[in-house]
């Protein structure tokens, strides 16, 4: 059996007196598609942000692609990672945010080429060629010269996905990428993600409130509550036959509110 | 047959060069529950805002409860309504907004009693008694002294509904009252509205993207597109058996995005 590409080991995350993640451990195999679901405030976003090194951790260890994320070896000791180490580790990971976070002062094409040119030393011509391929894939090739303010939410999010893909990370993180969108625009983004899931062997972690999509997309679903994993399993099991009472209650409410499973 | 409580007659609404409503006519019977659905930008919010006199109209007439809304009689002529006429007409209508628009500097109870005390000359004791009944109805009696900042979105929206009801309007307007809420909180608000629809004979107009709820709630569904009514009918007909191609396309997208009908 192959070794996990992500090994989260007994992670603790505190904000002041508030413990948000409390000894969480997860293993993710290469190519696996994981959906993280659960009530608001349960720590789903936090775990993605920790993987993207946008937060610090209060305890525990994370191994990504065979290397420590927040620590590095110095002789025999494991010490806190410095900026250079983090910079190297971030190459393996890309993230798409709920609110897109496109660079508003740059056109779509420049949003995508900026990082490859600055961090991977790609030439402009190469970077733009690759960017156009990605824009083509997300169906946005005709908007290459538009600035973000001219795009609809769904279009922005497709550009954000292309931007993250441009760095060819091994792992992609998606945090509620459709929840800021008008209902009609959700589908165009989910379609892009379905293709992505089907066509690449990237490892993907997805936080979503779209149960139907989680069901179609994921190999494995983790149900979070209060910073812990309460239940996990194949989507069929979790959605059709949840074992834990909390999971049942959560799904009942969501379904009552008009979401299909 | 009773006469309509709302008679919208050939309404035109323009913003500069943009025509948002183009000769729209609707009749609503007393006690009827209407759901307005349709794609983003089709003018659903606009028509509610016009009924609430939050906009002006560019052409046409509206009759509410037997009187002109935007016009008044002066001798034999029909002239533009003045502030006093509007003030009298607004007594008949209440509205609940997508973003609640509670008064953040007043506690829940004061939010509800403010308007009855100022506009209907109600005494504090009477106003508070009625407010507590309404809070009880929306399940918020225990939060009477809380300020809005301490409430969740669903709780805020239930207070907003109570606030609108406190003026006992004949007509209630609801504009996407759940779309700013976390999915889990949607249900508590919809439950309140279901009770409301069942227990009162108020006339209600509802704009929503929750097709399931529109289906349960409405006597009649109007499908809007580009400022016109493309199709209307009983919920069963519209949702199960739409005749127009645009309606079919819209519903297909919404359903694909994970909403139940």
């Amino acid at each position, binding site marked *: 059996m192959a070794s996990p590409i992500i090994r989260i080991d007994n992670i603790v995350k505190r904000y002041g007196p508030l413990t948000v993640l409390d000894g969480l451990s997860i293993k993710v195999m290469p190519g696996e598609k994981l959906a993280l679901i659960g009530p608001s405030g349960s720590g789903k976003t936090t775990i993605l942000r920790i993987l993207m090194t946008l937060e610090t951790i209060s305890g525990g260890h994370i191994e990504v692609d065979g290397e420590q994320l927040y620590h590095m070896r110095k002789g025999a000791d494991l010490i806190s990672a410095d900026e250079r180490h983090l910079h190297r580790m971030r190459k393996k990971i890309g993230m798409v945010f709920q609110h897109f976070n496109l660079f508003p002062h740059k056109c779509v094409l420049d949003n995508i080429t900026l990082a490859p040119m600055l961090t991977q030393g790609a030439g402009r011509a190469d970077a733009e060629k690759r960017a156009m391929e990605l824009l083509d894939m997300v169906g946005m090739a005709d908007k290459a010269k538009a600035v973000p303010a001219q795009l609809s939410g769904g279009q922005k999010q497709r550009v954000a996905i292309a931007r993250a893909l441009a760095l060819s990370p091994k792992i992609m993180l998606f945090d509620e990428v459709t929840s800021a969108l008008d209902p009609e625009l959700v589908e165009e983004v989910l379609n892009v993600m379905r293709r992505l899931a089907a066509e690449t062997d990237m490892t993907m972690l997805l936080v979503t409130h779209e149960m139907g999509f989680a069901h179609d997309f994921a190999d494995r679903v983790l149900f979070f509550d209060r910073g812990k994993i309460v239940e996990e399993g194949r989507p069929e099991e979790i959605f059709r036959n949840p074992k834990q009472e909390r999971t049942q209650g959560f799904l009942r409410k969501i379904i009552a509110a008009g979401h299909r499973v | 047959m009773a006469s309509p409580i709302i008679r919208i007659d050939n309404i035109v609404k323009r913003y500069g060069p943009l025509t948002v409503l183009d000769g729209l006519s609707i009749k609503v019977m007393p006690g009827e529950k209407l759901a307005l659905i349709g794609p983003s930008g089709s003018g659903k919010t606009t028509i509610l805002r016009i009924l609430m006199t939050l906009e002006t109209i560019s052409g046409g007439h509206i009759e509410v409860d037997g009187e002109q809304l935007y016009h008044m009689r002066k001798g034999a002529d029909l002239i533009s309504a003045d502030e006093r006429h509007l003030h009298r007409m607004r007594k008949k209508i209440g509205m609940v*907004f997508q*973003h609640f628009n509670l008064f953040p500097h007043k506690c829940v109870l004061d939010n509800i009693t403010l308007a009855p005390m100022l506009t209907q000359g109600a005494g504090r004791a009477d106003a508070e008694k009625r407010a507590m009944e309404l809070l009880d109805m929306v399940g918020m009696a225990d939060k009477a002294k809380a300020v809005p*900042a301490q409430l969740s979105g669903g709780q805020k929206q239930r207070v907003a509904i109570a606030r*609108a009801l406190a003026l006992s309007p004949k007509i209630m307007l609801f504009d996407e009252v759940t779309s700013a809420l976390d999915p889990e909180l949607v249900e508590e608000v919809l439950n309140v509205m279901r009770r409301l629809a069942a227990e009162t004979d108020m006339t209600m107009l509802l704009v929503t993207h929750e097709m399931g709820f529109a289906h349960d709630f409405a006597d009649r569904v109007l499908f809007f597109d580009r400022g016109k009514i493309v199709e209307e009918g009983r919920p069963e007909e519209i949702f199960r058996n739409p005749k127009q191609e645009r309606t079919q396309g819209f519903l297909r997208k919404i359903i694909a995005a994970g909403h139940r009908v």
Partner: protein
Amino acid sequence: MSVWSGYLTLILEGALVTLKLTVMGSALALVMAFLAGLGRLSRFFAVRALATTYIEFFRGTSIFVQLFWVYFVLPFAGITLTPLQAGVLALGLNVGAYGAEVVRGAVKAVGRQQTEACVALNLSRYQRMRHVILPQALPLMLPTFCNNAIELLKGTAVVSLISLTDLTFQAQVVRAQTGNTLIPFTTILFLYFVMAWAISTAMRWLERRMTRGLDGVRT
């Protein structure tokens, strides 16, 4: 030493004049700020035009020119004010014009949504302002008002140009009489700073009181 204590008294008398100017000028500025700030939001064109003219004129010309006019030119129109009145009038009108923009900005920042909620609840224009908009706008105005009050305090230094015996003027007198520059100027710098500090402390206290229990209002 005794001579210096006498001159110190003189400077403190100047501080009293500065204090009076600041307090009375701020009071006038506050009134003007609300009149003109709300005036600019009026639905009547004439009121808007009047408020706009006042604001642009007093923000546009320099306080020096305004002082000069109030003090030397108004008397030709038959209005002779004491130096203190002239100082209060010029400073109050000047700072009031800046304050008007603060009032307008804060009222607008409270937002269309709150106004619409009021319309839907059928409140009258006056009731909207009184019960919903202003109570929320006031805490937004306070920090800028604090800055304005300090600007006014500093502005009082220029009234020494119209022979008002304020702090700066008294420092000049002491300097002429004693031939010492460092001591009077250091003393008044210190006094100005103490007054500015007192203003911001008072405003912070007021702000805390007004926003008590209203966390998150501004988000």
